[in-house]
């Protein structure tokens, strides 16, 4: 974990209000998919960093991609920075996805929703290298919000859903997942609260099902207790998402 100024190599609006940035920095060496970075907003009056998932990692160029949806003033300000400018980044943070137990030809289900999709692309890249078989179900609000469809198609079998039916299957990812019967060696999900909650319950007893959670953060490194979630089982315990997450086993915490 380090703090450094990273150069923006690339910044492009890839969907309405969704920007893809490529950042270059030393910390890339230490990154694994599922971790996140904590980006300082380049505006003096906004103090809190913004947690953003690492999408894909390129060890060769020492760079990584993030996909940021402009949601408020902070993400707007970050996304308004041009290539060549720098951002103050703290990272990599959190635990990342565990894939150590997987073997070639294992079957994996990947479930993403909206702006939760990007970190799954980095994961899928890694799984692809390991020769894992992937079913990938991605849900978006509308056709315009779809990202990384092509990239995922190169890595596995992709199904897209849209909330309004403007592309792919009409409905939530659950519409698709409820029809899947194949047992999977692992399940990885990242998306809005509803999606995470659904996976958390549906695959509660699966030995290798994971969800990646979001919460408002202060420090990002386990010092302030802003970002907690509660353990599912007694004795009651609060877990810091920034430090012990953002990836949790299903059934581990309450979503």
């Amino acid at each position: 974990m380090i703090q450094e100024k990273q150069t923006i190599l690339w910044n492009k609006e890839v969907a309405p209000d969704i920007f893809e940035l490529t950042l270059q920095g030393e910390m890339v060496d230490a990154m694994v998919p599922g971790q996140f970075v904590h980006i300082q907003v380049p505006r003096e009056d906004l103090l809190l960093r913004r947690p953003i998932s690492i999408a894909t990692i390129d060890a060769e160029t020492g760079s990584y991609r993030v996909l940021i949806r402009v949601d408020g003033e902070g993400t707007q300000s970050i996304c308004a920075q041009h290539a060549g400018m720098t951002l103050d980044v703290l990272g990599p943070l959190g635990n990342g996805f565990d894939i150590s137990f997987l073997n070639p030809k294992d079957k994996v289900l990947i479930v993403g929703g909206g702006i939760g999709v990007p970190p799954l692309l980095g994961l899928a890249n890694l799984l692809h290298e390991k020769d894992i078989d992937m079913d990938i179900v991605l849900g978006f609000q509308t056709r315009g919000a779809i990202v990384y469809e092509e990239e995922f198609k190169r890595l596995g079998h992709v199904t897209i859903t849209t909330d309004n039916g403007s592309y792919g299957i009409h409905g939530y990812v659950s519409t698709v997942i409820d029809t899947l019967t194949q047992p999977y060696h692992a399940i990885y999900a990242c998306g809005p609260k509803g999606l995470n909650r659904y996976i958390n319950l549906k695959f509660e007893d699966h030995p290798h099902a994971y969800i990646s959670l979001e919460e408002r953060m202060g420090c990002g490194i386990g010092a302030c207790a802003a970002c907690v979630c509660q353990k599912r089982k007694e004795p009651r315990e609060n877990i810091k998402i920034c430090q012990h997450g953002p990836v949790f086993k299903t059934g581990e915490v309450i979503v």
Partner: protein
Amino acid sequence: MNRLRVKLPGLDLKNPIMPASGCFGFGGDYGKLYDLNLLGAIMVKATTLEERYGNETPRVAETPSGMLNAIGLQNPGLEDVLNEKLPKLMKYDLPVIANVAGSTEEEYIEVVRRISQAPNVHAIELNISCPNVKHGGIAFGTDPIVVERLTRACKDVSRVPLYVKLSPNVTDIVEIAKAVQRGGADGITMINTLLGMRIDVKTRKPILANLTGGLSGPAIKPVAVRMVYAVSHAVDLPIIAMGGIKTVDDVLEFFMAGASAVAIGTMNFHDPMILPKLIDQLPRRMDELGISSIEALIQSVKEARAHE
């Protein structure tokens, strides 16, 4: 001679800069970013007798040049702090200031009594002012009679010097500070957060699950400076000051207001390297401003007042 050294009751500080309570946990992962031995001291997260789970999330919200928090005193409880958290800080040459909170006078007393016996706890910071705790926390900090009695009761059982942390959410902070002095405290820390709220215009509901939270960060600095100035004129106790410190000039501004050491909270989140940076920049800025040592600055502020 160490120009940055400051001696306060219980605390022989190699420099006068430390993290504020609740913004640094018990070190958190800051130790992975830099050597915590650089710090003057460490003010750790509030400890209560039993474990506390704190408030629901969201617990933080952003505001212009500030933030709101409503953590709600989440902490693992006295036993765990004594057995797990504090021992981990033993490996550093770092005086610990233990922040103590409670719902009842008895709880405060018990925590102070026991935590003040921990080998690396050099001082107690009595948190009588946390705005996020429903059970009485706010009342403790705003009534001078209660403050005086609580201070005395804790002082009586503490093995180390006792500092009391003042809330800014009062009509007359000087009155509270005087009560703290009468109660026999060895020092004052100030300020805690200002009560605030943010509402999400999309949901029309407060952002914080707790509805209100404590405002901290540069936004509150002028309030903190004014209060440190007023209190340091009115009582004869050393003050560890905090509230919005961001730059080395902010650090010095608080000394000129009457502080004897400073703590940094919120800005750790913005720049996790802020503490070592400020400690590094301080001597250079002192040179520019003709300040030979921090002790000399503290002294000269006192003397200037004698002539006011």
